[in-house]
């Protein structure tokens, strides 16, 4: 006996992960699987720019707010494209493009309250933007001048984390701390929800869901009722590996096994991402966390500037997703419904040009760190052994000229 009702069976639209060289049907099925979110997908703005309603996650939004979201996405995309270009010019050693994921990141970023904390992976330039981090401050890591330059506590935005999954446990601990600090589930004098309650949101990818640390984060957050939103950007690819290398099921269903909500949202629909993340963060602030959100989106560019996607994915797939562009649908909706003047779009365009210009400027002017920096902040307290190593390097550097002249030899 083995009936699908009894437990969650693999979706018909997810091809068997062990499929050898795929058949034509499977290729098409695969295309559909990565381009359609399925029945449970939460969407409020269609790719064609039509506003649709949703029974659970609808949202009232002012035209001004929608224009602001549009502006955010345009600026974020410009930052991404400009940084990509800077890498091509040799000004950056590496860049990690977010192209295509603007809606997921701006929707999530704008759903946060100032007191909420975010823990990013390494692709969350859009969330960083929403947290008020100057895009120029993102570049040091990719230029090789620092490992992260902003103050994570001041900006409430953690440093980029490269080891897949690590930040999920760190975010879980931070969220546990919010609860231990009594910042969850409070009410004010009139019995209304206190508006200084806090939540945490952690970002990771579809590939990351396979890591033990992500599972342990799910376990801890559930057991400690942590006010934590697990925000998984399923951009369909982990470098060259499609999502079915990681799971039989749609990733939002992973939450079922832990006993907390899992929601799949159209990650290219900034409205839906905003609505679902606002709801999830509020659930957490009220003490009903954790919550898993799978933002169903697509990595339109290479994994990083060193990657060559043509080796592992079909251009048809990329073409499919171009039709679902997160910015275009908002532009269409704003324009069609007369919610934005032509001048508005021009202003945003001009603003993004300025931003790009500033970014180029800032990038080439990032000072190279001095050699002493190698030893700075390894420890918070004195370490004589390390001090000796620093002195050794310093005296060596001072002596370099002589060595070069080779006089001694």
């Amino acid at each position, binding site marked *: 006996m083995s009936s699908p009702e009894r437990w969650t069976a693999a979706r018909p639209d997810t091809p068997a992960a062990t499929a050898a060289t795929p058949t034509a049907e499977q290729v098409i099925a695969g295309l559909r699987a990565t381009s359609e979110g399925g029945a449970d997908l939460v969407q409020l703005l269609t790719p064609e720019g039509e506003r649709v309603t949703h029974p659970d996650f609808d949202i009232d939004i002012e035209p001004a707010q929608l224009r602001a979201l549009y502006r955010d996405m345009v600026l974020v995309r410009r930052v991404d494209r400009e940084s990509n270009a800077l890498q091509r010019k040799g000004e950056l050693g590496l860049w990690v493009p977010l192209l295509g994921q603007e809606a997921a990141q701006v929707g999530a970023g704008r759903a946060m309250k100032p007191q909420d904390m975010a823990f990013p992976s390494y692709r969350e330039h859009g969330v960083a933007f929403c947290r008020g981090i100057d895009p120029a401050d993102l570049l040091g890591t990719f230029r090789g001048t620092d490992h992260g330059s902003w103050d994570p*506590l001041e900006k409430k935005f953690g440093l980029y984390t490269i080891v897949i999954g690590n930040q999920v446990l760190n975010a879980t601990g931070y969220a546990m701390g919010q609860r231990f600090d009594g910042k969850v589930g409070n009410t004010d004098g009139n019995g209304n929800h206190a508006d200084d309650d806090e939540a945490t949101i952690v970002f990771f990818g579809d590939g990351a869901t396979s890591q033990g640390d992500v599972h342990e984060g799910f376990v*801890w957050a559930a057991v400690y009722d942590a006010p934590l939103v697990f925000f998984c950007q399923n951009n369909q690819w982990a470098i060259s590996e499609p999502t079915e290398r990681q799971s039989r099921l749609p990733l939002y269903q992973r939450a079922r096994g832990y006993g907390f909500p899992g929601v799949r949202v159209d990650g290219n629909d900034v409205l839906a991402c905003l609505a679902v993340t606002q709801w999830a963060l509020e659930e957490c602030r009220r003490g009903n966390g954790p919550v898993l959100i799978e933002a169903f989106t697509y990595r339109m560019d290479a994994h990083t500037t060193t990657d060559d996607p043509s080796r592992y994915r079909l251009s048809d797939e990329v073409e499919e997703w171009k039709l679902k562009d997160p910015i275009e649908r908002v532009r269409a909706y704003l324009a069609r419904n007369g919610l934005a003047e032509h001048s508005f779009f021009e202003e945003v365009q001009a603003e993004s040009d300025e931003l790009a210009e500033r970014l180029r400027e800032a990038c080439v002017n990032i000072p190279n760190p001095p050699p002493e920096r190698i030893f700075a902040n390894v420890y918070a307290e004195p370490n004589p052994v390390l001090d000796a190593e620093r002195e050794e390097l310093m005296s060596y550097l001072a002596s370099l000229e002589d060595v070069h002249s080779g006089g001694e030899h």
Partner: protein
Amino acid sequence: MAAPTLEPTAKAAKPQTITMAKALNAGLRAAMEADPKVLIMGEDVGKLGGVFRITDGLQKDFGEHRVLDTPLAESGIIGTAIGLAIRGFRPVCEIQFDGFIFPAFDQIVSQLAKLHYRSQGKLRVPIVVRVPFGGGIGSVEHHSESPESYFAHTAGLRVVSCSNPVDAYWMIQQAITSDDPILFFEPKRQYYSSKAELDTSATPQPLHTSRVLRTGTHATLVAYGPSVKVCLDSAAAAAEDGIELEVIDLRTLSPLDLGPVYDSVRKTGRLVAVSESPMEASLNSEIATRVSQECFYSLQAPVLRVNGFDTPYPPSKLEEDFLPDLDRVLYTVDRSLAW
């Protein structure tokens, strides 16, 4: 035990005799009373008080939000402790046995050790990871290991080990107040056998300093944790044969405080380094290398090492031959003297 002769407690008011286990428990309690941000996390540290009872009674007195019985996963323990530290807490994590720290290795090496550096000092992760370590307890696999060298090799971490109740009491508190992450290695087989008089009004010596426990002229023994007692016993036995051995307790494994060792070797000309850990690329290798450099002209024999062998920890019926003991230490001292 050397403890009673230790300086700090010499001027003891009404000193009480306590075990290392009790000393650690008292030290943890004092730290939790001193700072409400101090948390204890780990497997079975709550109601049970830990399998060694080091945290006995703390959950009862400080509550479930200060003493956390966590889910069973070490990466989760360290990974969430890091988040709690970023939030402003000072977690003290217990790893139940030395052999079970490895699931947490990635969080320790990739995050715990690097966050302060990565953030240019903006993030502090003042976490103490308590590890009952070493062999000689007749237990099964993974319960008798000495993994300290892995962490001494890892930049960004501090590593210390106590060898007696008095140090245990003070060092755990000093470690908890440190703003750097610290691996705290406890010689588990001495939890209840090691007793000493503790004067809580004494002034402890700084955490990251080693200490001469016994002075001698013929050769120097350097050790830490469980091997310190072995060295003291060896020195006592050698003395009966007229051999005066100087014994140094390292106490701090990273950063090393080798000044007293250099001074001693310049005097004795001979050094034997003793540790239960495997030998290859270990702390004893580092000690031997540095002493060979610093005391190049004083050494009358090469630095000799007495270690556990480069094998997995053997079945416990064999640990007597595996672990450095008085006989093997004196045998090696003889080799050094005969060089």
